[in-house]
């Protein structure tokens, strides 16, 4: 696994999206530097998290991973791209965490939970299909190592590096157990231990059961075995045979006692049965005497109630008689009630009749009034309705005509407008035609005017051009003359200058020549030196140089000046000749032309100004004629245009005149139609009453409704009157029948009354009052009857009993049983006691026999368990390192020692380099292990120099770091070797270098650099300054208020 790129977004101390590309390092050592807490370790955390869903510190909580600096828009996630075996994988993962929602959520608190997600992109670019757990498993499968192994070998964490080094054997075992998955061995240990525990429990259970069963064994009271048995309790498990023998003896003793009790119990039962029979026969006789006495007592009691019995019989008799009269009485009362009812109804009817006869009168009057009203209005309304119906269609006709007249009027108006418009147009056209005709008359000479002007202009133009040219030549001639005049003056001046300079030169030359002797004498003649001219050595009279004698230089100078002047003069002269020639030619040209154009006797001296005057005159003339020409051109154009216009106008006048005739005809027709329809409308209007059809319909309906109302009032009044009349007649019928009823019922009442009194007399009651007193209800009669019957039966029964018991007791006497019962009770108690005694001893017997059988079984079981215990105890003690007097090394540790030795060997290869062969690490030999505490994975320091070993804790800080680093590298080697195809090309070392001195640090860095080579990535997280200078590849983490940033130092 070699990271290529990691992207962290709002992760740890990084607020924004941070991207670190490790490709810049590609291979080798790099340094991660930065302030404390800036997030150096976070980089490794992010890698671990991406791979294993938790940080190197084991944190899984997304809210803890999320950067506190992150704003709500930034999502927390880690994206790791890494290379494994040359293939590129990518993992994107985010934890579950809460962040402030972008939008307000429904519950209003504005928090939203981001669900945890992971996405693995495989080398073929496809995303691995599977849920989170499946993806996690896939990642672990790809890497070949799990999180435990990864963090142990890919990261030597800050402060953690001593853990593996200083761990005791037991702690180391726990670490190895996970890394090398030796858990199967520890499970074997665990199973052994629990198996042994199980056996122990079984033994204890067996002991409890035995104890329980032994408690079930008891002796009879005062047994000779009692003390012996109690002694047997303690340590019974070691004397099982003795226990069983003693139980045998105890049981035998019990059996003997049991037999004795049985025989005495049988004897006692016989005596008890005899006395019990005697008591039973005596008690039967005594009972009969008792019953006889009871019967006689009853007889006396009945006798005392005889009077009361008789009265009851009389009362019953009179009640029975009264019972016969009862129906007659009831009939009489019913009839009486009917009569009262009828009388009440008659009263009500009479009252109603009085009230309603008045009402009938009022209704009759109302009816008469309604009929009168109807007769008055009916005919008038009918007539009106018929009239409206006749005229209703005329309204429609009127509306149609009105619409028609509006249309016609509109058309009439538009025709009138058209006629006046056309007339005005024709008028205008005629006016314009007149105007154009007069214009044409004035323009009829335009063609001749145009030709004349054109010729004239051409003539003058030619003159102007020629004169203009001549004028220019005249100007040039004047310039030429000026130049010629100046040149003459210049030539004279040059000649004068030359003459003057020549004169000066001549003069100087002569003076110079005349002074030659003086000059020679002055320069050459010295005393005693021969004269070059004459050879005389004496020079008495030396020629002297006059005061103003010119020198040779002066002469030369003057000569030069003269030569210049001469040259100049000849040059000027040449120039003069050239100018003169030009002037002459110019003069000739002007004269020739002027004689042609101006006048034949033209003279330059007198008439030169005439040229210019003539030119100006022609120019002015040309201007005038040009204006005349332009006018002629425009007149000509106008004349031609007017001809076309006139033709047009004539055409238009013709067309419009014919149009006007047509429209005027149409207008006259419409005028006649308009008058006809208007008179029609007036006709119709005369015959109509209402303004419109709607009003007519409304009036019709109103009249129909009124007619209907009148008829309805008459009908209603008739109905009301008839109704009332019918009701009154019905009531009168009722009244008559009720009165008939009253007469009939009255007769019936009299008849019933007579019969009722007859019955009272016939049944021997002296008066109606007596009858009513004797009357009883049916229940009362029945109760009285049964009271009488009961008395009679009791009397006969008692007599019977007295007769029977007197017969039976004849010749017999009562017997005393008290003594006999006491003897019997005593016997019963004795029997109960002996029974109890028997039961006790029987139960004892049963219990002891059962206990014996159980104990026998339990003892056999115990033997079995004990042998198992021995086996497992020895296995367990060995596997778990619990053999007394031996080293405490368990099975798992024993296995791990092989890995441990390998790790140490790998570590030593590095350590030898780092420490220059001073010490190595060594796994403590079995023979050197102590007996106290768990051992087996103990680490020692071996001094190569002295061949001695010492404890790992005696190493100094720097030595410890080197040892730990070596161990970590060794561990990494071994894991990668054992996990087969695992290739972990990355390692992070978090601090620790500060404890090394310069040379050790150098060695350590060299080892790491070699380890890294060109392919592996080794990241060192450190503050040490020297490392910053030494390692060029530096990842700098910068802390700020708004989260950290990270960049590669350049």
């Amino acid at each position, binding site marked *: 696994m070699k990271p290529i790129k990691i992207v962290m977004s709002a992760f740890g101390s990084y607020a924004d999206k941070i991207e670190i590309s490790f490709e*810049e*390092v590609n*291979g*080798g*050592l790099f340094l991660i530097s930065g302030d404390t807490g800036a997030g150096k370790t976070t980089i490794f955390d992010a890698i671990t998290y991406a791979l294993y869903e938790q940080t190197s510190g084991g944190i899984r909580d997304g809210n803890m991973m999320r950067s506190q600096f992150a704003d709500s828009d930034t999502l927390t996630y880690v994206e790791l791209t890494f290379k494994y075996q040359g293939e590129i994988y990518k993992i994107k993962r985010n934890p579950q965490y809460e962040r402030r929602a972008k939008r307000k959520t429904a519950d209003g608190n504005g928090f939203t939970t981001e669900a945890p997600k992971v996405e693995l992109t495989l080398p073929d670019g496809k995303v691995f299909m599977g849920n989170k757990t499946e993806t996690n498993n896939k990642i672990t499968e790809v890497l070949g190592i799990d999180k435990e192994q990864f963090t142990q070998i890919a990261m030597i964490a800050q402060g953690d590096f001593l853990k593996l080094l200083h761990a005791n054997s037991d702690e180391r075992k726990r670490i190895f157990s996970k890394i090398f998955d030796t858990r*199967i*061995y520890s*499970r*074997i240990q665990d*199973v*052994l231990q629990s*198996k042994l525990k199980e056996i122990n429990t079984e033994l204890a259970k067996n002991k409890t059961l035995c104890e329980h069963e032994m408690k079930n064994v008891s002796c009879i009271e005062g047994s000779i075995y009692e003390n012996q048995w109690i002694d047997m309790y303690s340590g019974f498990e070691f004397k099982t045979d003795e226990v069983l023998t003693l139980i045998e003896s105890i049981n035998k003793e019990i059996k003997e006692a049991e037999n004795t009790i049985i025989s005495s119990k049988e004897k006692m039962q016989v005596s008890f049965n005899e006395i019990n029979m005697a008591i039973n026969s005596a008690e039967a006789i005594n009972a009969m005497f008792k019953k006889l006495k009871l019967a006689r007592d009853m007889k006396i009691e009945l006798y005392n109630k005889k009077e009361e019995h008789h009265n009851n019989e009389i009362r019953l008799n009179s009640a029975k008689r009264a019972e016969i009269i009862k129906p007659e009485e009831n009939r009489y009362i019913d009839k009486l009630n009917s009569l009262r009812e009828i009388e009440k109804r008659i009263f009500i009817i009479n009252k109603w009749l009085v009230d309603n006869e008045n009402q009938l009168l009022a209704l009759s009057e109302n009816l008469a009034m309604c009929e009168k009203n109807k007769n008055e209005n009916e005919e008038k309304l009918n007539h009106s309705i018929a009239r409206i119906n006749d005229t209703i269609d005329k309204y429609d006709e009127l509306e149609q005509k009105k619409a028609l007249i509006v249309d016609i009027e509109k058309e009439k108006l538009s025709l009138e407008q058209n006629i006046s418009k056309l007339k005005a147009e024709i008028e205008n056209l005629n006016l314009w035609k007149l105007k154009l005709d007069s214009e044409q008359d004035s323009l009829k000479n335009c063609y001749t005017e145009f030709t004349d002007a054109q010729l004239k202009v051409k003539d003058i133009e030619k003159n102007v051009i020629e004169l203009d040219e001549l004028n220019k030549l005249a100007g040039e001639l004047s310039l030429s003359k000026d130049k010629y005049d100046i040149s003459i003056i210049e030539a004279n001046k040059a000649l004068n200058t030359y003459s003057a300079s020549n004169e000066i030169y001549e003069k100087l030359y002569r003076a110079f020549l005349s002074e030659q002797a003086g000059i020679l004498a002055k320069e050459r003649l010295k005393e005693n030196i021969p004269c070059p001219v004459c050879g005389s050595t004496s020079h008495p009279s030396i020629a002297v140089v006059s005061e103003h004698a010119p020198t040779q230089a002066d002469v030369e100078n003057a000569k030069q000046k003269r030569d210049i002047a001469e040259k100049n003069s000849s040059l000027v002269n040449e120039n003069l000749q050239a100018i003169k020639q030009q002037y002459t030619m110019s003069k000739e040209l002007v004269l020739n032309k002027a004689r042609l154009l101006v006048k034949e006797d033209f003279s330059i001296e007198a008439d030169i100004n005439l040229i210019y005057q003539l030119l100006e005159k022609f120019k002015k003339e040309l201007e005038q004629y040009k204006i005349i020409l332009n006018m002629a051109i425009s007149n000509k154009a106008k004349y031609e245009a007017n001809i076309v216009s006139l033709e047009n106008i004539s055409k238009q006048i013709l067309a419009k005149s014919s149009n006007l005739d047509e429209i005027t005809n149409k207008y006259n027709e419409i005028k006649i139609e308009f008058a006809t329809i208007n008179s029609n409308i007036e006709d119709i209007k005369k015959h109509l009453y209402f303004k419109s059809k709607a009003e007519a319909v409304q009036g019709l309906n109103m009249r129909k409704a009124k007619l209907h109302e009148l008829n309805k009032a008459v009908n209603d009044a008739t109905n009301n009157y008839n109704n009332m009349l019918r009701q009154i007649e019905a009531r009168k019928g009722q009244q008559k029948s009720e009165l008939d009823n009253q007469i009939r019922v009255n007769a019936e009442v009299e008849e019933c009354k007579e019969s009722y009194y007859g019955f009272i007399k016939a049944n021997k009651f002296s008066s109606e009052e007596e009858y009513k007193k004797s009357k009883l209800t049916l229940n009362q009669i029945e109760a009285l009857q049964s009271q009488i019957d009961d008395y009679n039966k009791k009397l006969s029964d008692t007599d019977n009993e007295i007769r029977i018991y007197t017969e039976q007791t004849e010749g017999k006497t009562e017997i005393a049983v008290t003594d006999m019962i006491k003897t019997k009770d005593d016997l019963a108690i004795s029997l109960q006691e002996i029974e109890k005694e028997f039961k006790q001893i029987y139960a004892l017997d049963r219990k002891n026999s059962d206990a014996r059988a159980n104990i026998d079984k339990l003892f056999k079981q115990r033997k079995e368990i004990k*042998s198992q215990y021995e*086996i*497992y105890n020895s*296995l367990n003690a*060995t*596997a778990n*390192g619990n*053999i007394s007097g031996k080293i405490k*090394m368990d*099975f798992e540790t*024993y*296995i791990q020692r*092989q*890995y441990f*030795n*390998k790790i140490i*060997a*790998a570590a*030593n*290869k590095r350590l*030898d380099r780092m420490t*220059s*062969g*001073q010490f*190595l690490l060594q796994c403590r030999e*079995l023979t050197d292990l102590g007996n106290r505490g768990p051992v087996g994975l103990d680490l020692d320091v*071996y001094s*190569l*120099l*002295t*061949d001695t070993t010492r404890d790992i804790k005696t190493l100094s800080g720097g030595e410890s770091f080197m040892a730990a680093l070596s161990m970590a590298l060794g561990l990494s080697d*071994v894991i990668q*070797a*054992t996990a087969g195809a695992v290739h972990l090309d990355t390692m992070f070392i978090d601090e620790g270098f500060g404890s090394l*001195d*310069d*040379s050790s640090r*150098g060695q350590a*860095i060299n080892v790491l*650099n070699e380890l890294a080579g060109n392919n592996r990535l080794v990241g060192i997280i450190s503050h040490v*300054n*020297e490392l910053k*200078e*030494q390692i*060029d*590849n530096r990842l700098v983490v910068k802390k700020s208020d708004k989260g950290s940033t990270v960049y590669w*130092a*350049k």
Partner: protein
Amino acid sequence: MKFFHLSDLHIGKQLNHYNLKEDQIHILNQVVKLAEEQKPNAIILAGDIYDKSIPSAEAVTIFDNFLTQLSDIKPAIPVLIISGNHDSAERLDFASTILGRHNVYIAGLPPREKHEYLKKVTLNDEYGEINIYLLPFLKPGYVRHLFDEGEITSYDDAVRKIIERENIDYSKRNILVAHQFFTFQNIKPETCDSEITLISVGGLDNVDVSAVKDFDYVALGHIHGPQKIGYDHIRYGGTLLKYSVSERNHNKSLTVVNVKNKGEKPEIEQLKLKPLRDLRLEEGLLEEILARATDENRHDYISVILRDELEQYKPKEQLENVYTHILEIRVDNSRTRSKLEASCEEINIENPYEAFENFFFSMQNRDMTEDERKAMISIITSVKENDR
């Protein structure tokens, strides 16, 4: 033009916990004495003046004394100093302008702005002017901003471009002082353990000498053994002292260079130096090593490799009794060799039952009984089944 070419003083360095203060003062005094005798035209210190970027007070004092002694020599000898990878460029640069007025020319920092150039010191001798360019130690990152994007990708680029932009007139006599890892067409100089190599991308910290071959002499620092690299006129000065056991056979000396006419080969002379204590490797039987001790050599720094097969009685104490400055003692015999030999056998974890059988025997000193065997097999079987 005669000058001393020194480099890599590493003042303040410790050798296996021994403070080299005395040794360094001793050797620097020799340099001063030679300067007084030889009267060179200049003294060049080609980097790594101090051993650490933050030198100890003691180290600063040693260097201060050395400079003071040199400046006392009359007529004055210019001293030219550049920073090395061990030095802090800024700290070394302290007061360099002021010192420049007193014949001490220090170049700690490379050019940082576009208008800045290498420090150049022009000296005169009987042959005329000679320009000495001081190129302090640099990493590509130090100067990358002076050039176009992507122009500087390696140390080689950095040095080459920095020299190119100087527009040096090679028709004159020029000397370069530098402290980089110079190589010649993939041939590296002989290195030793005391040079801590830089760790850079793909190890590309080397600069090919072709970048500097046009100078008349190139005075290099960084490599601790005095040697030429590629050309006779491109040389590492080497350290004055042996700073690691791997340098035990080095002939530590002072390089004196004499540059004459343009185009003439510079004359190189190595002046012998006598260190306070030599650094040696003593190898052999304890008895022999002890026997080799003399009054002269027993104070040397020695690294010992003992080859006795039989373990000797307290060898360290015996050696310390004779030799006063022992750097390290190693034992190289069949015992230590076997200890170091990694156990090559593969980890062979037998099946759990067999493993337990062995374990049982080694713990109990007996084999398992038949009952124990049966129990164990059933236990292991059940564990394995549950494991699935």
